[in-house]
């Protein structure tokens, strides 16, 4: 399957899962909103240019926004993490040329610790920006901090489960540089 087709299917699936499963879940607590959809941006291939990545992030967020009736909220947060992503990868990648030898960021291509850091940093960034935008309209400081922490914890748990359930095989490609 080509990368483009794979990512298009992922695009649709992530939005459907977020809208029809995670958002339909019974209310647990006002601090907890289970978010998983932005994992799509973390899974995008290395080869995408930075402008392309930013645009995909914006478009992906906006598509979700029209379902949740919050135009611009998720788009802003997704644009931010899509823009920051290359910097974080550049800092964390351990082997020389791993971003050329593998297709996308994963446990295999980046190694356990760097990949986990990459996920935690971007998740925290996404949630902080998202809740900050919500907080500007209403809520207290406790709501702001509590929601970031609780939602990040739930998101990380969901990401871990997804990574374990849908293990992405990554082939080592040589002679690509």
């Amino acid at each position: 399957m080509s990368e483009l087709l794979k990512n298009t299917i992922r695009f649709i699936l992530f939005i459907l899962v977020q809208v029809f499963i995670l958002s339909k879940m019974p209310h647990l607590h006002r601090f907890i909103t289970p978010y998983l959809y932005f994992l799509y941006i973390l899974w995008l291939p290395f080869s995408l240019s930075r402008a392309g990545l930013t645009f995909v992030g914006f478009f992906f967020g906006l598509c979700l926004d029209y379902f949740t009736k919050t135009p611009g909220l998720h788009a802003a947060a997704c644009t931010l993490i899509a823009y920051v992503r290359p910097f974080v990868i550049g800092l964390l990648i351990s082997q020389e040329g791993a971003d050329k030898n593998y297709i996308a960021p994963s446990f295999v291509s980046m190694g356990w610790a760097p990949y986990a850091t990459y996920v935690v940093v971007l998740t925290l960034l996404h949630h902080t920006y998202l809740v900050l935008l919500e907080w500007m309209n209403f809520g207290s400081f406790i709501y702001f901090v509590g929601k970031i922490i609780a939602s990040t914890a739930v998101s990380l748990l969901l990401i871990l489960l997804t990574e374990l359930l849908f293990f992405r095989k990554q082939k080592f490609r040589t002679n690509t540089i």
Partner: protein
Amino acid sequence: MRNVFVFIRRHFNFLFFLVLQIIALSFLFRFNKFHEAAFLNVSTEVTGRINERYNNIEYYFQLKKTNESLVQENLRLRQLLKENYEGPDSARRLIYDTIKVDSGRTILKYKILEAKVVSNSTSGPANYLTIHRGFDQGVRPNMGVTGPQGIVGSVINVSKNFATVQSMLHYQFGVVAKLKNSNETGNINWDGQSPQYVIMKRISKSVKVEKGDTVLTTQISSLFPANLMVGTVAEIIPDNSSSFYTLRVKTATNFSTIEYVYVLDNLQYDEQKKLEDSTRKKIQ
């Protein structure tokens, strides 16, 4: 000039990011203020169709509850039939006259349109419902929406066949309501804590309130006719710094299982609004 192009070229990624951020934030702030955004009409139509597909399946799992709530409502309405009201003596007979015609002129105020809920959320701080009835079927923004058990929210956006309803569980929603026993009015808002409770503010401490008291709509609000159910008082919170109570009200509507709603078309809304606006202009 050349330097400008060099600058744009060098920082293209960052500038592109900034432009997208500004677009996204302008969408967001515009929507929060005026409930409008670019492509919102088209997208409501598209997401409405997808939600409808999903709802077709989900609907079967809720059939029992939907049926129960409709039977309950029928029971309540049957109780109001005029045949149920009869004193033992014909001299004291009480008749409810339902023909509201005054010298050939109709004085109907609220026209009721039924609608199916195709999408519904309760988990966020800003919750919306999508209903399968839109502009072509007579829905306009600023119409009240009620369910079989109690009020639900108000219409904020309309596309051709679908409409978006701002639920009572939204931080911007507000409606005037009264306590049934004392006729005391107060504002209903949502504090975002739990989808089962809303807050009623500014009830004077001189009023006698008890747990379980009924909260109803008033005719002051142009969204709803009087005496629709809002909820029941669940908790009375005395505010020590003022002479008002804050009440926690359990909503009559169960927002997680709602399948059918009624849209209330206030036929006299335009006239009332026009008068109020012109009065405001005169005062200024």
